[in-house]
């Protein structure tokens, strides 16, 4: 009964001064809209920049480094145990870059819950033969399906169809720069020579554009079997295993673990791209700073508007109290008012924020480095909407609570006498 009465009084107070109510609600709406749109946009841009690196880089790369052995014969000698041994002019042994026990490693990765997936790879040094000239290049033999699933291979193939690499034998997807140099069109056949002198003719089925020009001049892609054929190796020849984890932050720890477990070089993305790591964390810091600033500014805006609204209703408070409404009732009436403004204003803000994000999402934006991106990136993270919703309710609650608590505590006569 009392609840109903308080609600009906609140509604009457809101409706009677609907212009003022509207202004207050618009204030909340505007703040929340800006918060949502800006944070979605910033975090979209952030994700895009992260994507430049993260899309095509494995979280952990397993490979065999050609390096001098860490254990030299002298270490085994009983006589010099406990001595410091200095050996000069060490040379690495003639060893193939192959990963020896890769079926066992794959099995272990299959059974690891933390691993999202992995893609084996062969790196082959080649020369592209263009008439009388040889251009140096690298052919990556990849598992097309896994490469597409884990490393967005498809997005970077700008011409041709990526799946042809798997379906057409002896096919190649050329780096855009290399293709331009070789004047190779789709469907043409190019000739490559391996570092060991073997020649092979490959059909061009697409162009690859990573966005880094120097890389695109050199790098091309073939299927694993084509690469094995090219190198004259058997079908258990793999030089790299690219692992993608469920959480990128696990990479450094797991790289160490795999390095020890498989007795292999394991490099995590954070070590391999420390400049990216720094850039990414600083960008995250910036977006947090902007987000918090927006919330604080919005919070004060909302607080001010509602505060003024309630101070304007001081007479009503005094009258209500004089006719027998308690401080508690007054408090509840104004909190109901504040919360309904927060609820509707905030709700509108979320909707408009979504609309504005959508608008930005449709503004054309072309960049050579990310061929798939055609418009400005937006991150529609529900987290932002949740924060916006909670924030609008909490600030309006506080904005209603403090002045109405103050008003509810003073004797009504203090307000009346002040007239």
């Amino acid at each position: 009964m009392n609840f109903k009465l308080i609600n009906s009084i609140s509604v009457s107070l809101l409706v009677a001064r609907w212009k003022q109510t509207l202004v207050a609600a618009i204030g909340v709406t505007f703040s929340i809209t800006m918060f949502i749109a800006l944070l979605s946009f910033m975090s979209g841009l952030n994700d895009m920049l992260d994507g430049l690196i993260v899309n095509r880089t494995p979280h952990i790369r397993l490979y065999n480094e050609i390096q001098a052995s860490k254990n030299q014969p002298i270490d085994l000698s009983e006589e010099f145990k406990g001595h410091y041994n200095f050996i000069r002019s060490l040379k690495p042994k003639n060893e193939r870059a192959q990963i020896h026990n890769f079926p066992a490693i794959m099995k272990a990765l299959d059974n690891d819950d933390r691993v999202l997936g992995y893609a084996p790879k062969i790196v082959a040094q080649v020369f592209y033969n263009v008439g009388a000239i040889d251009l140096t290049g690298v052919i990556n033999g990849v598992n097309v399906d896994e490469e597409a699933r884990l490393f967005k291979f498809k997005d970077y193939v700008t011409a041709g169809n990526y799946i042809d690499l798997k379906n057409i034998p002896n096919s190649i997807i050329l780096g855009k720069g290399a293709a331009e140099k070789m004047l190779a069109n789709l469907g043409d056949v190019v000739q490559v020579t391996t570092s060991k002198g073997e020649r092979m003719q490959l059909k061009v089925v697409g162009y690859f554009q990573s966005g880094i020009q120097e890389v695109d001049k050199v790098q091309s892609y073939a299927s694993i079997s084509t690469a094995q054929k090219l190198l004259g190796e058997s079908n258990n020849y793999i030089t790299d295993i690219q692992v993608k984890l469920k959480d990128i932050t696990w990479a450094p720890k797991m790289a160490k673990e795999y390095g020890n477990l498989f007795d292999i070089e394991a490099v995590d993305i954070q070590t391999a791209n420390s400049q990216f790591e720094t850039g990414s964390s600083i960008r995250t810091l910036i977006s947090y700073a902007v987000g918090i600033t927006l919330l604080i500014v919005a919070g004060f805006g909302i607080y001010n508007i509602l505060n003024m609204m309630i101070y304007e209703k001081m007479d009503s408070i005094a009258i209500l109290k004089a006719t027998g409404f308690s401080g508690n009732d007054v408090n509840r009436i104004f909190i109901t008012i504040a919360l309904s403004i927060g609820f509707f204003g905030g709700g509108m803000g979320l909707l408009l924020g979504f609309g504005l994000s959508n608008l930005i999402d449709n503004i054309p934006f072309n960049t050579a480095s990310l061929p798939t991106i055609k418009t400005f990136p937006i991150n529609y993270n529900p987290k932002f909407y949740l924060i916006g919703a909670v924030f609008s309710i909490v600030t309006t609650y506080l904005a209603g609570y403090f002045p109405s608590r103050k008003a509810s505590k003073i004797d009504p006569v203090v307000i009346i006498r002040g007239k």
Partner: protein
Amino acid sequence: MDKIILQANNISKYFHDPSTIQVLKEITFFLNRGEFTSIIGKSGCGKSTLLYILSTMDTDYTGDLSIDGVSMRDKKEGELARVRNEKIGFVFQFHYLLNEFNVLRNVMLPGLKLGKYSEKEVEERAYQKLKILGIEKEALKIPNQLSGGQKQRVAIARAMVNDPLIIMGDEPTGNLDKKNTEIVFDIFKELSYSTLGYILFSTHN
């Protein structure tokens, strides 16, 4: 008939700003049920101040106040609000109606707050009070569409809606012209005679 319903004991009140002045000096008196009492004095002598204390709207005083045999001294804010709601009707010098509500709703609000009757009954009672005061035709208007005298009558109806033990009026005719003053006073007199249990307080110079 001779039941004491309001008892003031040594009530004193000080104002501290700009300097401490004692406005009310140990006021002691009592009122019986059904009495019509006036407080008369020069302007600035503390009539309104005393009324505000007696109506529990001002709690910053010394001394003791009992209404209907119960001391108001140590009551909490919420309990005082309840007393105001149930036992006291107050008519201000200025009408103090809420322009957000229509006349009928303004009169109904204290009744709805009391919660003794259903909304329908409260509406019926409010309508009756307006009828007694001869303004039932204005029931659905907004207060600022009424004349000063009509507003003051609405304020009286609002003070009466819970059938309080005491109706206090703080210069209820101060803002009115002679004709309206007479109307309001007639109403007050009529109430004090015809409606048992109403005590009427009115102050004027």
